[in-house]
């Protein structure tokens, strides 16, 4: 992503301030620092509220802790080893296909004033670390209310190493990385973050089993108001996520900012209207869910597509998310408790596959790949070729996540004597049984 974007920048005739490489630009630096802070906010505030508001009151703090705990641990793991695996460079080509090696463990060899293009590498590292942390935090939504906190923390640590880092490397790791070389388009993490986190959630949910009483008793959400605030904070932070993935304060960032807003607004509206039609009641949870589905769907496409593409991706993303949450879950009867899979995986998948069809056909915004190549060569735009690359990327990421998450869970579960709390703890609620705390004391 980084490297790709740099190539891009030098190639294109963007109306940006041109600069010699390796010169810090204060505007780009400002934007990337802001973006890092924005993405940080998404996890311990945005996602934590979004999720805790939806769980039963007896599990609200546990849900919050899973998200916040995931963030602090995953970020530490990222600095210690994840960054090196994901964005380091491995000498051996076969290894470089999958991971970046161990040369930058503990950020070894990276000076404080090193630059990534026009801004400090340290900012790039922190920015990417917030992505690593939110990805695993997303998965927690599928398993709240019954997983041991100790198991979860071990999952977080291992998953960051075995699943997140390699996938990130494959997609964004620069020359020699598997899907990067194949020319996959994933602007800000549709595959890397959302499919990945969402699928991991589903796998964990199946492995840890359903909550007691999941289809027979009413599991009332603690407070949808908190969920809605969480969605609003996610939306806000997502500007760092998507427009920050332009790696500078430039026209591509501006494009991503606009498409993100359009897709999200349209998706929020869509979910509301579907509910109105189907259930006669538009819920606040519905609007909030639509907003998140739209944000997810536009993520892989944000810097590639135009206005109408953003509308379509947002609207369809919302329809698909609704389908995932309401129908798919009912059909297959897994307990994807807060719908990490239903929303993040499905909408992320949709966005990834839809990108080639709506991408602006110009060489300024496109990354290397079949589509750009065909256009550069003056041929008919090779949309289907690009679609096949997207499909490949989706399948490889999906397979890796699936296998990796299973392995991670079994290790974590073995280390903690089973991944699930006992029945009594579950019935009392995890806030009390695990943390000895209560969500609210009136």
């Amino acid at each position, binding site marked *: 992503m980084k490297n790709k974007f740099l190539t891009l920048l030098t190639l294109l005739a963007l109306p940006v301030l041109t600069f010699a490489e390796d010169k810090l630009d204060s505007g780009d630096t400002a934007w990337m620092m802001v973006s890092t802070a924005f993405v940080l906010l998404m996890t311990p505030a945005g996602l934590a509220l979004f999720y805790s508001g939806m769980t039963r009151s007896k599990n609200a703090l546990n849900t919050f802790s899973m998200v916040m705990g995931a963030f602090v641990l995953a970020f530490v793991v990222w600095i210690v080893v994840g960054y090196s695996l994901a964005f380091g460079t491995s000498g051996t080509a076969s290894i470089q296909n999958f991971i970046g090696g161990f040369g930058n463990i503990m950020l070894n060899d990276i000076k404080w004033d090193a630059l990534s293009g026009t801004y400090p590498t340290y900012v790039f590292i922190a920015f990417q670390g917030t992505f690593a942390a939110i990805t695993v935090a997303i998965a927690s939504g599928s398993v709240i209310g019954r997983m041991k906190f100790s198991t979860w923390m071990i999952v977080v640590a291992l998953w960051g190493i075995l699943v997140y880092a390699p996938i990130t490397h494959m997609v964004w790791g620069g020359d020699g990385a598997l899907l990067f070389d194949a020319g996959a388009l994933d602007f800000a993490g549709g595959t890397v973050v959302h499919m990945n986190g969402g699928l991991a959630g589903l796998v964990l949910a199946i492995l840890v089993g359903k909550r007691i009483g999941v289809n027979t008793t*009413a599991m009332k959400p603690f407070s949808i108001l908190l969920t809605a605030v969480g969605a609003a904070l996610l939306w806000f932070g997502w500007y760092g996520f998507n427009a920050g993935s332009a790696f500078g304060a430039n026209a591509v960032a501006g494009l991503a900012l606009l498409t993100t807003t359009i897709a999200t607004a349209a998706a929020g509206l869509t979910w509301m209207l579907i509910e109105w039609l189907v259930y006669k009641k538009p819920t606040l949870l519905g609007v909030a869910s639509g907003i998140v589905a739209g944000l997810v769907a536009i993520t892989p496409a944000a810097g590639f597509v135009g206005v109408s593409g953003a509308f379509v991706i947002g609207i369809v993303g919302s329809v698909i998310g609704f389908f995932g949450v309401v129908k798919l879950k009912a059909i297959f009867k897994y307990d994807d408790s807060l719908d990490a899979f239903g929303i993040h995986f499905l909408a992320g998948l949709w966005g990834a596959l839809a990108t080639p069809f709506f991408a602006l056909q110009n060489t300024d915004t496109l990354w290397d790949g079949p589509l750009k190549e065909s256009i550069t060569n003056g041929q008919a735009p090779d949309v289907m070729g690009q679609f096949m690359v997207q499909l490949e990327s989706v399948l490889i990421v999906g397979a890796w996540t699936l296998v990796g998450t299973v392995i991670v869970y079994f290790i974590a579960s073995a280390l903690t004597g089973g991944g699930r709390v006992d029945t009594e703890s579950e019935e009392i609620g995890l806030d009390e049984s695990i943390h000895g705390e209560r969500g609210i004391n009136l």
Partner: protein
Amino acid sequence: MRKIEAVIKPFKLEEVKEALVEAGIEGMTISEVKGYGRQQGHTELYRGAEYVVEFIPKVKIEIVVSSEEFATTAINIIKETAHTGKIGDGKIFVSEISNVVRIRTGEEDTEAL
């Protein structure tokens, strides 16, 4: 002494309380309860799952009075002011109380009311 327990619709509380006070009833204890009865509950939605909330918010008023007379007054007042004529208006239950103590003074029985 009699204890009157009335389960009423929450938005009637203010009105009932004022009528009781006007009639000289000077003390009462209220609590928030949920009622199940003929009145239909409503449905709540959660991501497409509809679940019926059969328990409806009500307010329970407890009044202890010293005499049959006062009891009748209180019952009549509640019957009138809490009345809307729609299902779910609630019920009044009357029972015996054998003793009352005022904690502040230690007074007992009807003195304590």
